[in-house]
């Protein structure tokens, strides 16, 4: 089973998220070792590969809050046969979307100019910084998403159930207590 050609290739990324879903993914603990017999990673924060190549499964954490998020998300959609939205932010916008009802400039001023303990008190304006959007959106408002795995974050057990269902060709199905939005 360790022949790389037979392994399912998986990419993951975190857009406007907190990496909590990735941490929860690591919470499947020693089952990771068994999982690595079945999958190999393409782009993920774990491999530090910068661009996503052709993959079987793409797992996206976080919503879309800036132009770079859209580029990454479209790259994932283009390269992944199955795209999975993981966590509240990817599915609803989540906590970052709480800024959706606040003017973006007001947000920036609050964070970069008025907040205490800052040096310079200016809003970052480097051309390399991605263009921020006025609203944060869930990823299914930008690309087609095949599966949703809710939770903030989904538990390690829920992630394990989801992945093992998917890898075994079953329609992923969570038990009642595994399905939660908080």
């Amino acid at each position, binding site marked *: 089973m360790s022949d790389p050609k037979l392994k399912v290739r998986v990419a993951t990324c975190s857009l406007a998220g907190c990496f909590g879903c990735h941490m929860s993914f690591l919470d499947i603990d020693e089952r990771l070792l068994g999982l690595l017999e079945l999958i190999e990673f393409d782009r993920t924060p774990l491999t530090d590969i910068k661009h996503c190549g052709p993959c079987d499964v793409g797992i996206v954490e976080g919503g879309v809050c800036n132009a770079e998020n859209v580029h990454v998300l479209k790259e994932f959609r283009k390269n992944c046969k199955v795209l999975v939205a993981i966590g509240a932010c990817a*599915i609803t*916008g989540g*906590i970052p979307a709480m800024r959706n009802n606040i003017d973006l400039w007001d947000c920036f001023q609050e964070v970069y100019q008025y907040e205490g303990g800052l040096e310079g008190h200016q809003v970052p304006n480097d051309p390399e910084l991605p263009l921020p959007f006025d609203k944060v959106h869930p990823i299914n408002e930008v690309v087609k998403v095949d599966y949703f795995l809710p939770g903030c974050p989904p538990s390690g057990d829920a992630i394990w159930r989801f992945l093992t269902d998917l890898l075994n060709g079953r329609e992923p199905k969570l038990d009642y207590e595994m399905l939660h*939005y908080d």
Partner: protein
Amino acid sequence: MGAPMSKTITIDGKSIPFKDGQTIMDAAMAADVYIPHLCHNPEFKPHGSCKLCTVKVNGRNVASCTMPAVEGQQVLSDTLELNDERLSLTQMLFVEGNHICPSCEKSGNCQLQAVAYYLGMMSPHYNHFYPQREVDASHPDMLLDRNRCIYCELCVRASRDVDGKSVFGLSGRGIGSTLVVNSTSGLLGDTNLAATDKAAQVCPTGALLKKRQGFTVPIGQRIFDHRTIKDVQLGEEHE
């Protein structure tokens, strides 16, 4: 004076007894048959607005919380078609407001969330509206967060019919509806609402919350964390 429970309707093929004056919902709940609902609460006059309790009666869709039970009705409730429609209605409630569960104190005790769990909602599906809604923290003991209001009118009914205060009302129509407060300033803090009022207890979501209660019961130990809304509400019916 005759057998009091001699009349019956049929729900999903099961014979359900009822008394005159009962709705389909009343008869179903009494017989341990769960029909998903949000704006209905057996303690109050039915409102019939959320439409989650829609059932098919003799081929027509009706709200079971307002439709009187009538001898011989053939009711379909727990069907794939009706549950799909209930799921769509629930998803629309989610995208119409700002329901950000990870930031909400009511999470785990919220009936909107619990119904979504019951119906297996994996995503809100529709594009989010992210509407602009007002938060009112002016009351010393209560928080009114309109982002989470689903316009069920339970607080309106409780305040008017039980507390006799008429603190709340709905204003506007359709997507422009908003929950308004009966004070000159429009602020909750300028009303005579008390945290002990019935109106302060009935919100199915986190729109009307008691202050300083937030996480006295931790996430993971809340009402719907381990029990479905079906089991909880049928249990309450028989208390």
